[in-house]
């Protein structure tokens, strides 16, 4: 019994750790998609931020500077996506794919230039676990939920905050309206372009938190291609959660559980490759089961032109 509870606790802790980058990216994706811009660039935004964070921490020796580097990188790449999709009316899925490839190629290029070789970067100081007094003493869930990195606590706080922002503030209303009926937003004298830049920028900042947690929360180094599809899984979580922060976070937790299980299954039982397939298969099954019924923001994917 003790053993079972113990492994349940460690599974829960692992679920939280795996879900955290997904939650950040999904919340970010929500702002972008709610404003009408498809964001399959989340994968690349996380990757470039994961890298920038490590570079910042490596240069300065401070994790906080790393975080700032990551946020800047996420913002810059998101602004490139916004520039292409909103200003230049490029195809949003193609732009997103290009951002992903740019992040992959760019980090590979910069790894060689900065660290002299590809593969894995030197180790840097990351965000260590900080136990919250009292809460972390609760049996099982205490250590799992409240003995985590500061970024995890930030994730907890951001879920209700994004919910409040998107559904209870004028800014959120404008973002949502821009994704549903941009004409109305335009008529009301609010710039559709500006709202979409805000939406995409927020997605860059939030995805950056997810990326930096990967490279400096879970690990303390950058590895090429380390996001391994997490940006896309986050996007699936967003769709599954019907573009709602609470739903998206819930779905991200489910996928986090899927990822956590892949690390817990004994390798002798099933070949490792099949265990590693689990989160991807889960994503497909969830999308096929529920994705069809999710209704996307009406104006998503379409550039807005003033008539």
């Amino acid at each position, binding site marked *: 019994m003790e053993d079972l509870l113990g492994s349940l606790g460690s599974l829960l802790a692992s679920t939280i750790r795996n879900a955290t980058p997904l939650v950040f990216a999904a919340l970010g994706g929500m702002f972008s*998609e709610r404003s009408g811009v*498809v964001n*399959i660039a989340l994968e690349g935004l996380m990757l470039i931020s994961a890298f920038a964070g490590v570079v910042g921490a490596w240069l300065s020796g401070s994790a906080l500077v790393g975080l700032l580097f990551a946020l800047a990188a996420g913002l810059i790449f998101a602004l*490139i996506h916004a520039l*292409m999709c909103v*200003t*230049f*009316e*490029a*195809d*949003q*899925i*193609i*732009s997103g*794919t*290009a*951002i992903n*490839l*740019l992040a*992959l*190629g*760019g980090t*590979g*290029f910069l790894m*060689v*230039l900065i660290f002299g070789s*590809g593969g894995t970067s030197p180790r840097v100081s990351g965000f260590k676990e900080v136990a919250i007094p009292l809460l972390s003493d609760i049996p099982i869930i205490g250590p799992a939920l409240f003995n985590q990195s500061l970024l995890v606590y930030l994730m907890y706080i951001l879920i209700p905050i994004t919910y409040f922002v998107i559904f209870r503030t004028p800014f959120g209303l404008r973002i949502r309206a821009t994704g549903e009926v941009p004409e109305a937003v335009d008529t009301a004298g609010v710039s559709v372009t500006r709202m979409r830049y805000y939406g995409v920028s927020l997605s860059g900042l939030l995805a950056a938190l997810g990326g930096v947690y990967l490279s400096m929360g879970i690990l303390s180094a950058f590895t090429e291609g380390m996001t*391994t*599809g997490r940006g*896309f*899984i986050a*996007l*699936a979580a967003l*769709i599954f959660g019907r573009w709602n922060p609470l739903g998206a976070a819930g779905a991200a937790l489910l996928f986090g559980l899927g990822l956590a299980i892949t690390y817990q299954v004994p390798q002798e039982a099933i*070949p490792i*490759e*099949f265990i*590693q*397939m689990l989160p*991807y*298969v889960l*994503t*497909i099954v969830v*999308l*096929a*089961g529920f*994705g*069809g*019924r999710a209704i*996307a923001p009406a104006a*998503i*994917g379409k*550039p807005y032109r003033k008539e």
Partner: protein
Amino acid sequence: MSEDRREPEQSPRGSTLRRLLSDAASALVFPLIAILISFVIGAVIMLATGHNPLAAYVALVQGAFGSPTALGRTLLGATPLIFTGLAVAVAFRAGLFNIGGEGQFYIGAITAAGLGVALGSLGPLGTLLVLLGCLLTGFLWGAIPGFLKAYFGAHEVITTIMLNFVAILLATYLALNPLRSEGLVPGTETIDPAARIPFIGLGLGRANYGFFLALLAAVVFYLLLWRTRRGFQIRAVGLSPGAASYAGMGIGVNTVLALAIGGAFAALGGGVEVLGVYGKMSIPFVEELGFTGIGVALLGRNHPIGVVLGALLFGGLTSGAQEMQFATDVPLQLASVLAAIILLLVTATKLVELIVGKRARELASGTHLERETGL
């Protein structure tokens, strides 16, 4: 699509040749602007990192086209990209994104690696059977996202991306377990040389007849889409799903077929790569050819001629990058960066509008989907 559209003021007077030339010229506007800007950005990156862009680009071009060996390397690099480019283009014609070329390529590669060893003793007949096997597995694998899209509403962008991971893991498992060779290099057994695709020779290095198979695939692509009823339906569904459905064309069946045919093209590319270049599938296997296919297809405006030209460009970029790194110390990963920037810019309607004026919007018709994305 621009190549189908006759401009009303031109068609009565202009000759067919003139129309073709003007269509070709306008089809080149988006790609040329994208390529030019990406090379300018590349030059800025090189200046910023203390390299000489002029020397680097000279080395790049020489490494891509400067000698028979370089040209052979470019053809070698372009071959898989023609297949993965066609895989993206056929889906795009049906109004769908196939981001799954990477996984489909792996499915073809492992099929060829497995079947090739089994049928190697049959010689050229074995080659043919192996390639047919790749067509089949690729078709079935490609049909999965089509089926999930048509009947379960799962968006193909995400399902094809997820299936990439599944396919790569599946191929890795097969290559390292049931098909694993006794040798030291992790991967499958080597295929009997008699069943492999032969080299072209002529001083072209390792370039093989797979390049001509790729050209043949481009011809088949053209005939399929523009000379058959099914191809007409696939294009009609892509151009206007509402009208196609009203005309009695099944959206579902054409969705499944377009993605399945795409899968078959990409898998054939994987098979040709195994039979022509490596003679086996070692792990890790070549990466990113499926993703680069997206850039190839869009640069080539989803037309077979454009795809071949796009593949030659990207193939040349990869091939030249090795020479560039050797001669000027610029990391060859710059080629991936340039390719990504080209893809980033190649659909940027407004950007082209800034340069060539209002005509850009009409020229953009080959680069944007008519269908709802809903993602």
